[in-house]
């Protein structure tokens, strides 16, 4: 695939009337948006509104109550709150493993983008929280997948690292990638549109309040 991601010119991520549920109760209803190549969408909304659930549903980790998510198979690289790193493996071993899982082998580009070369032989368990986060974001680059679905990607990153991450997203968009992120800080990415999911809060959820937490 190389640096030019994906091959279909019409490749988009289209979400139509998606209704999602957490713990069996609907949290967001009728969410619709479309994402084309080179576009980014930032999902905003207060805590507990269902941002994570929305991203997990789009990534295919949980079923929706209704509506459709259409994109080509195996195009999404998902990154969650947790880093998904193995403390007893080195930075290189962690990245190489994910590269191989996604059928890739080159990790030097990912190491360079997130300035991890000096840490390459350190065990992931000995990294600081911010360094772990950078390693976890570097994983996105080795997957070579065009659609990034990121849940709070900037947690525990300092200002310099946030800029590093924003640059990585912009270069990803420039090579024809897409990004869907839930984040509260301003990344300064001019291509990014904002989707405030507060407008889609499910009516059932409004009447029952926060009782869905009991089912978690």
């Amino acid at each position, binding site marked *: 695939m190389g640096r030019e991601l994906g091959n279909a010119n019409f490749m988009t991520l289209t979400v139509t009337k998606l209704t999602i549920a957490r713990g069996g109760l609907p949290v967001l209803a009728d969410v619709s948006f479309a994402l084309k190549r080179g576009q980014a969408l930032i999902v905003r909304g207060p805590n507990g509104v269902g941002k994570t659930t929305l991203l*997990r549903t789009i*990534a*295919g*980790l*949980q*079923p929706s109550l209704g509506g459709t998510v259409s994109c080509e198979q*195996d195009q*999404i*690289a*998902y*990154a*969650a*709150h*947790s*880093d*998904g*790193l*193995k403390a*007893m*493996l080195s930075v290189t*071993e962690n990245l*190489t*493993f*994910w590269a*191989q*899982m*996604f*059928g890739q082998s080159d990790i030097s580009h990912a190491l360079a983008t997130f300035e991890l070369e000096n840490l390459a032989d350190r065990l992931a368990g000995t990294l600081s929280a911010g360094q772990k986060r950078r390693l976890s974001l570097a*994983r996105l680059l080795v997957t070579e997948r065009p659609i990034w679905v990121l849940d709070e990607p900037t947690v525990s990153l300092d200002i310099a690292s946030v800029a590093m991450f924003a640059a990585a997203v912009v270069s990803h968009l420039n090579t024809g990638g897409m990004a869907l992120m839930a984040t509260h800080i301003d990344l300064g990415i001019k291509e990014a549109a904002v989707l405030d999911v507060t407008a889609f809060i499910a009516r059932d959820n409004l009447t029952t309040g926060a009782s869905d937490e009991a089912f978690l």
Partner: protein
Amino acid sequence: MKALLIRDIRLAVRAGGGFGLGLAFFLIVIVIVPFAVGADTGLLAKIAPGVLWIGALLACLLSIDRLLALDFEDGTLDLLATAPMPLEATLSVKALAHWITTGLPLVIAAPILGVLMNLPTQGYGWLVLSLLLGTPALSVIGTFGAALTAGIKRGGLLLSLLVLPLYVPTLIFGAEVARRGAEGTDVSTSILLLAGISAATIALMPFASAVVLKVNLR
């Protein structure tokens, strides 16, 4: 697939990976049985196949709850579920890695520990063969149990209660092969049934495991 297998084995042998946990447990059980039962060599020889099989089964069970729980806690399972490899294959590879790091060492250690249990000479080959055929089934069934309890913190008790009944057929026919082998009687029926159980679980269990894990990842 190879990457996942190598990673799991590498993690198992590194510090805190749990390699040797099952083996050490097996060793301890078999060493203390003669102390508890007494020095009656005839009696020891009689119970040897059964005790060796119980030891191996419990040693397997001991390490099963680490199989998916650690990957669940640090978020790796979510990422593996979105990787191009189907979840069925992922779980089969993880079961294989578990067998290589837990089951295989037990198979190798069993004849040495058989000496401590005064196992009759003709029984060693059958003991090793029965464990070689039976322990893969223990790993695959254990993976199913681990997938069922993946979302539960400290789910070890529930896992044991769920998995032990599923282990019973393997135990019955595995120990039967080892016992008949030690006595020098015909083993063909029980060895075919043992091999059948292993083949069926290896072929079918990963599908069940993948389904319950998908439910647990929600």
